């Protein structure tokens, strides 16, 4: 399978995301000004500070030409993963419910957090063992998830580890159809035990399994 990683001006985790994808499949970079998704099977919107995060995190990136194609891809059922700034972009674009607000502490947080898998049967978590706790780093200043309406919570911060004041300890949500997923923690930074944890790989392995499953049908 082939992943596409979107690169905006100001993205900074695009290369790590590409390398993480390459551990489970092929991967190519997608340029923000290019509407062509180059036939990828899944799209990753990575972390960083797209367009400087001017106005609000993700507010400008949402209007990038590539995002029109990503929205269409998502409408057609394609898998879209948004990490950190990518999560903010997907919320601003309306592809995911809710919004991300500044951390309650008003500080940038950068630390390893434990995550409980609330839904182990999604396209993004099926590779997780039942009851598995993931250990993945967060690094953000605008990660306090908020939604007035009920949402599908896929990952929660482990008890006492909420780094940003997120509502109900929410770390990751998905859309109703289950093909768009966003999370504040960075699975692409947790793909090798050498750097503390490899549990971020579960996300990419799940996506590969989902795409492979579809290919068989």
């Amino acid at each position, binding site marked *: 399978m082939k992943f596409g990683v979107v690169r905006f001006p100001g993205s900074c985790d695009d290369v790590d995301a590409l390398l993480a994808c390459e551990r489970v499949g092929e991967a190519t970079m997608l340029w923000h000004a290019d509407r062509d998704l180059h036939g990828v099977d899944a799209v990753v919107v990575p972390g960083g500070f797209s367009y400087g995060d001017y106005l609000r995190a993700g507010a400008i990136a949402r209007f990038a030409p590539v995002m029109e194609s990503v929205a269409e891809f998502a409408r057609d059922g394609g898998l879209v993963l948004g990490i950190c700034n990518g999560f903010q972009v997907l919320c601003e674009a309306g592809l995911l419910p*809710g919004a991300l607000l500044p951390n309650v502490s*008003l500080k940038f947080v950068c630390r390893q957090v434990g995550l409980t898998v609330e839904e182990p049967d999604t396209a993004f978590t099926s590779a997780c063992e039942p009851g598995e706790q993931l250990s993945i780093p967060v690094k953000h200043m605008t990660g306090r998830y908020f939604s007035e309406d009920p949402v599908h919570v896929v990952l929660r911060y482990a008890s006492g580890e909420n780094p940003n*004041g997120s509502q109900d300890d929410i770390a990751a949500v998905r859309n109703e159809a289950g093909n768009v997923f966003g999370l504040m923690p960075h699975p692409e930074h947790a793909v090798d035990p050498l750097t503390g944890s490899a549990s971020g790989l579960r996300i990419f392995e799940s996506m590969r399994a989902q795409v492979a499953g579809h290919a068989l049908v």
Partner: protein
Amino acid sequence: MRARVLVRPKEGILDPQGQAVERALPALGFGGVSNVHVGRLIELDVEDPGKLPEMCEQLLSNPLIEDYEIQT
């Protein structure tokens, strides 16, 4: 036409920036201050002010978390 858009956190949504300012003022000797909220001011020249609400809904504010007020 010169227009001004005020964007503020929606009521009921925790506003840590406002709280930080509220705590800082008494430390400087300014007592009797409460209900502080920090928002954003956007000034713009606009040919058709009728389009301002749409601009606010689509870009200048995020209606899920913010209220906006247009001054022309």
